[in-house]
């Protein structure tokens, strides 16, 4: 399942391009997320209204904040109607299904945009 989740992470730029209402709100946002599913991870960069997915590994490849969850938790987050323990990233932390670590300032500045981007695979199902 981990590979499926990573494949879904890789689709974020395409999914994002189909939602101009989110891109409009994200126009001034700048943040790099580490998205971890089990033992694998990618970096998602949001900059100047563009979403790019980058490798997680490599020299000088930093990120602002990491969202770490089991592949099953990501899959549950993307259900058409997620269960109460998988609906919201902060709720998933509260339910013990996700860890969020790093610099919270950019996340809190752009929290709704980040939530909306991470939920895009849900809308695509």
């Amino acid at each position, binding site marked *: 399942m981990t590979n499926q989740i990573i494949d879904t992470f890789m689709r974020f730029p395409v999914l994002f391009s189909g939602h101009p209402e989110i891109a409009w709100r994200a126009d001034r946002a700048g943040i790099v997320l580490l998205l971890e599913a089990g033992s694998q991870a990618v970096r998602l960069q949001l900059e100047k209204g563009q979403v790019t997915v980058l490798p997680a590994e490599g020299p000088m490849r930093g990120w602002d904040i990491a969202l770490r969850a089991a592949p099953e938790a990501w899959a549950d987050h993307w259900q058409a109607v997620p269960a109460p323990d998988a609906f919201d990233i902060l709720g998933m932390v509260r339910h013990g299904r996700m860890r969020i670590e790093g610099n919270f300032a950019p996340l809190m*500045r752009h929290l709704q945009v980040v939530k909306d981007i991470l939920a895009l695979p849900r809308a695509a199902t």
Partner: protein
Amino acid sequence: MSPRFDPVTGRYLRLDIGGRPHRLYVEEAGQGIPLLCLHTAGSDGRQYRDLLLDESVTSRFRVIAFDMPWHGKSSPPEGWQDEEYRLSTEAYVGMILDVCAALELDRPVVLGCSIGGRIVLQLAADHPERFRGLIGAQGAAWQDPWYDTDWLHRPDVHGGEVCAALISGLIAPGGPAADRHETLWHYMQGGPGVFKGDLWFYRVDGDLRDTIARIDTARCPLWLMAGEYDFSCRPEDMIATAEAIPGCRAVVMERLGHFPMSENYGQFARSLTPILEEISGPVPSAQGAGANHET
């Protein structure tokens, strides 16, 4: 074509709260048993807009929703610019009693949500004779913090946006989109530091785990409710409180989150109506605006 007004009256009430003059915005509809509604932290009385329009309720209850000082269309007290707003348990109870006295309410029912759902526990403990019934939605004596309230008021993060974004995940999926987003809009409109100031009661001053031992539900009936999608006041938090109070009734609501009356009133009414009927007695036919809402 005549104007299409909602059958709701909005007025400003002059009263002293805690010995200071205040100008409070109050909306009301209906006649009968007074039903005083308390909004959540960081929001205002608009959360009860659909309850105010529900004829099955307003035919039996005088529904009253006021904006707390500093919230909505209620002004902060004179001198506000020189103080930090912090809601305390004592001030919150005093405000509710002052509003009841100013409106000359005779043993009202109080319906509160979140901070309002918790303060009804203090009312039940200390002032049961003043109320006909107490209903706490998303109400528990205590729940553990799940974020640092310092993020709600700081110069490098937009207060309105972060307040709404933090609570957005507490709204259950599947409710009417317009109502879910209006619930967020109210949070976007709060004054700087007001949501944080409300949470001083919720997080610091309002641990009511010892207080609830004084509650006697024989003196005033008490209901607690919780939406299954609320991860702030979780159903298990509410149930733990209800089980510690003999006679307290507990209702877990499906497909609802932390703002049941605002995010999806039609679904909320399914749980609220039986409680109100127990208080007022059953109604032969119940029809109202709320019944038209998507659930």
